[in-house]
């Protein structure tokens, strides 16, 4: 793993507007240099419904995408719900190229995800 300084990624954790919902808002590029912070947050989160807002993630790399799919796998195993929302076009393109668009649960907004899942 790289040991040099890392590009900042900010993660804001807040309760959703419905019971049992936790919203993680990620701000900044999500990459091999910083995805562990994101992974820590998602692993510690035990809420029944986790919503990951990627609206302010301009790009991610393969490592971060793998991490996001780890959330998908973990939620499926543990029968928890999750959603990825506010996907910028560049991330949608990447998900499509990686062939995982159909796997990830996505919604246009936090409100849409809450309405559908909570």
């Amino acid at each position, binding site marked *: 793993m790289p040991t*040099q300084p890392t590009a900042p990624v900010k993660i804001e954790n807040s309760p959703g507007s419905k019971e049992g919902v936790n919203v993680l808002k990620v701000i900044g590029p999500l990459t091999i240099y910083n995805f562990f912070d994101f992974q820590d947050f998602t692993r510690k989160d035990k809420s029944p419904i986790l919503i990951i807002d990627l609206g302010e993630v301009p790009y991610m790399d393969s490592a*971060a995408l793998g991490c996001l799919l780890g959330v998908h796998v973990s939620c499926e195993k543990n029968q928890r719900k999750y959603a990825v929302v506010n996907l910028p076009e560049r991330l949608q393109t990447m998900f499509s190229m990686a062939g995982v668009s159909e796997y990830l649960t996505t919604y246009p907004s936090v409100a849409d995800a809450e309405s559908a899942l909570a």
Partner: protein
Amino acid sequence: MNKRLLLVKDSSEVEELAAKISQIGGCVVDQSDSNPEAKALAESASYDVVLTGVGGTLNEKLSFLEASNGHRRSRVIVLGAEPSPGDVTAAIRRGAFSYFTAPFQSTCFQEIVTRALETPDPVAPIQLLSALPNWIIMQFAAEHVAIERVLQFLREFHADLPPALRDNLMMACREVLLNAAEHGCGFDPAKYIQVVYARTKRLLLYQVRDPGPGFAPQSMTHAAISNPAGDPIRHLEVREQQGLRPGGFGILVAEKIMDEMLYNEKGNEALLIKYL
């Protein structure tokens, strides 16, 4: 201790950048109205990073690279008004940290400024082995700062391409460069990666070479390229069993973006081709 950044605010585009920079924590920003005025400031104080003005000559901008009054060298990020591959190669050769042409993509910009502030002095050089605008060869240490710098310089050589295509090309290059740095070099800054970028009327070509042992694409069960049809995440299980970090999508994504992608026999050199 706070880092110090000097910004030459000589255009409306830079005004917008200034707002972005102000969001970077732990950084004191001094501003100036022109390159000459900023040069005088830089001679009287030590700045970690200098962002040149958009206006003025390249020599004026690169003169910030000269250490003065015993101060250590600043990381210089050159701003330009219009695409100029010649200016970009000159900036690389003289040791500029990065180069941006207006309109500035704020995300990349903020990322590079942050890295320039965080990178300890001296910054490992990017060696420019060929500086023809249609045949660029860069050699650099296998560390993430160098990769991000190289990607931004490459982005500048693609300034005339549609933004979406340019973003995709850089996405592919990022994945291949990271593979070279991680798997070919173990992120060892003593090891070097070489990237060739060549452009003809009909194609863009990138060649990435690392000093590692190489790999056999057909034996990559831990990569998405080996997944059976209809199961795009099968390799994640393999990676978990092998104790590998999440990922494995890089080659697949790069292959989807490029029209052709091939490897040498050893597997430590990749050729990426995009037809125009």
